[in-house]
């Protein structure tokens, strides 16, 4: 009856790939973005040497650090297989809360702590709706976007918050000669990267994003982790708010339009798969720097301000297409 044919193993022993190949396999997209930044710096420097003046570098890195910080949380959310289109509105709300507290005379540490705590609380609600009520995250955050955007404008009536106490403006200060936002960005990116790479929690996010059902069967508490990742994302939004709200003497009641799209794009261009399960927070920070560099470089090579967004859009598109071609080549 038996029709089993005796056959030798079919696959040869796999060799352990070398360090460089492994680095490129694990951080391919991050390296591409890094290379793009370096090339861009080199080219623009040749055209206009003032590009790398300390002043301009501060503008590039410190002025956009809040986007990078928000993108860290966003990367974590997307890695877990979700998305958040409300983060821009959230940052606007948190900035108003923080500024109002500061102007009202509360100690600055309260004005700094409040956005972080409120951000965590708001996103805990969002996370709970996603995890327990099983509403797709894009729907929940679309609703949250309307609620927070509408609420912000009707609450503030469009007025700006002025007369911020100088002690509050932490983003304008320096430590060891480095601007605080830069320090924030680097420290938070490194900590988050290590945590995502080596902690059980971080690894479980990749597992959930890769295959949520399997993660559940493996004993990972998927619902709790989903809420947790949104809460952490809220904390990063709060930290981003501190940098955003304290960089100027005033807080506008409107956040930069489409901030959420910028943050999502940063995460995705940095190599986070929109389908979840892969990517790193290093990539999202590098991509933020790339965008900031592009924006600054265009001014330095005398592109009209009116055409700035078109050129940035074109470059984003080019990066997306290049990434797709690279991935296809690998398959």
């Amino acid at each position, binding site marked *: *009856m038996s*029709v089993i*044919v*005796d*056959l*030798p193993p*079919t696959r*040869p022993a796999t060799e352990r790939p070398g360090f460089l190949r492994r680095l490129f396999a694990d951080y391919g997209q991050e390296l591409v973005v890094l290379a793009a930044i370096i090339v861009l710096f080199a080219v623009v420097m040749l055209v206009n040497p003032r590009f790398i003046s300390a002043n301009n570098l501060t503008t590039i890195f410190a002025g956009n650090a809040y986007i990078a910080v928000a993108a860290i949380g966003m990367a974590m959310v997307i890695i877990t297989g979700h998305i958040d289109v409300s983060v821009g509105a959230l940052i606007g709300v948190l900035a108003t809360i923080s500024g109002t507290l500061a102007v009202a005379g509360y100690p600055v540490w309260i004005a700094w702590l409040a956005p972080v705590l409120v951000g965590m609380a708001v996103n805990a609600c969002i996370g709970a709706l996603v995890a327990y009520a099983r509403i797709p995250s894009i729907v929940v955050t679309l609703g949250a976007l309307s609620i927070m955007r509408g609420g912000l404008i009707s609450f503030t009536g469009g007025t700006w918050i002025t007369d911020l106490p100088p002690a509050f403006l932490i983003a304008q200060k320096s430590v060891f000669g480095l601007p605080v936002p830069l320090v924030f960005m680097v420290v938070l990116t490194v900590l988050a990267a290590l945590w995502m790479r080596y902690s059980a929690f971080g690894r479980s996010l990749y597992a959930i*994003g890769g295959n949520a*059902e399997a993660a559940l069967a493996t004993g990972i508490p998927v619902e709790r982790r989903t809420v947790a990742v949104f809460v952490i994302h809220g904390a990063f939004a709060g930290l981003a708010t501190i940098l955003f709200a304290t960089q100027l003497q005033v807080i506008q009641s409107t956040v930069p339009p489409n901030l959420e799209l910028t943050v999502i794009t940063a995460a995705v261009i940095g190599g986070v798969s929109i389908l979840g399960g892969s990517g790193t927070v290093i990539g999202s920070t590098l991509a933020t720097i790339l965008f900031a560099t592009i924006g600054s470089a265009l001014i330095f090579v005398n592109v009209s301000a009116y055409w700035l967004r078109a050129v940035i859009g074109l470059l984003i598109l080019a990066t997306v297409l290049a990434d797709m071609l690279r991935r296809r080549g690998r398959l």
Partner: protein
Amino acid sequence: MTAAPYVSLTGMSKSFVGVKALKDVSFDVRPGEVHALLGENGAGKSTLIKMMSGLYSPDAGTITIDGKEVRFASTRDASAAGIATVYQELLLFPELTVAENVFLGNYPRRPGGWIDWSEVRARTRALLDQLDTFDLDVDAKVLTLSVAQRQRVEIAKALSKDARILIMDEPTASLVESDVQRLMAVVRQLRERGVGIVYVSHRMPEIFALADRVTVLRDGGYVATRDIGEVDEAELVSMMVGRPIDSLFPKAEAAIGDTVLEVKNLNHGRHVQDLSFSLRRGEILGVAGLVGSGRTELALTLFGMTPATSGSISLEGRTVSITSPRQARDLGIAYVPEDRGQQGLVKQMAIRKNVSMASIERFSSGIFIKAGEEAQRALDAVKRLRVRCRNIAQPVGELSGGNQQKVVIAKWLETNPKVLILDEPTRGVDVGAKAEIHTIMGELVKQGVAILMISSELPEVLGMSDRILVISGGRLTGEIDRADATPERVGMAMTAHQSGEAA
């Protein structure tokens, strides 16, 4: 052999939405035995093993471990009690490494709560070595591994939790023969170490080669438990189906006519190299080969999914170039794919809509769908192919594997194909439906359809084919007539040209 059972289930019952999935079933596993669990799809095997692994809680019945009654509130409880499961659809995470997959959820920690990554890697290495899997890099991402390698990662994962009982749900369903051999060696080795194994499979040869005892379920009820020495295959099959099955491979005699399909020097990538063959009206041409040998790639090239880079295809003497499935369909080529759930069906859609999907133009006047005609054709197809369903509005996802496969076949028959390519037509299909699908194939060839049948199951290839093509490393390594076909000859050809495949 008569050791006390480690785990025993008594009087287990479970209902879903009022339908009894399991009624009063008892089952036990002793340390150091392989206990095979048999039954058609829908017989209640999955429900039973899901209760044993803590995924479902029973409506009635008790589970005892080492004589003490327990309750599993979650998979964690079951795994703490020493029960681990290797599911059919492997629960691995493609972006994580082998070592991470093995220890996910219970990483060894350093004081302070940090994961001890060097310990994780070292212990994974040791576990894989125990399974004689020296060729697997613990740092490789799982997405780069073959199915058989992934399965060994799953087994290592089970062992990492010191499993006393290992449940294996159709572990060989997607393995090639050589990997089945390695898996069976692993199972035997685990048994010697005192692990109790629950082995769910449709494949009789494996059950007779491995099992100590066998339990049969039918329609959610318990049929019998026997020592393997007491039963033979025919008896087991009739216990499963509830009726005797005359012949497993009812080869219908059909008149073989003119050549329909003629393929010359076909090429696509590494997996289709210089293939030439012909297929005649009323003929079943079996295609044998290991997974990765290029069988499915050949089908995809003929079907226009991955168009040929060179070579010629001619249909009824006319040379054609096929660059899309749509074009293949228009030329009279149909393809019933290997991955039914992903490629064959739209599971949420009704049977009616699935049946008309590949020939929707024929059910339309202008751009409007003629709903009445569509429903009529679907009813006919359901009746003709004996699809067991509530009605034609039922979503296909709710049907059993065999009935789903019949819907895929029905969909393609609506296009009146000249050439029907069947890729693993009976994988994951229970014994009864399998015989019915073979009967359908027989009827089709009688009507003059030419069938190209790809199968990993050697008995099926040998039993059904008029002629057998053997492919290895993307090349043709044998063309054997029915009369000359023996397992040994086909097996020899399957492993020829091994060097071509290594990469």
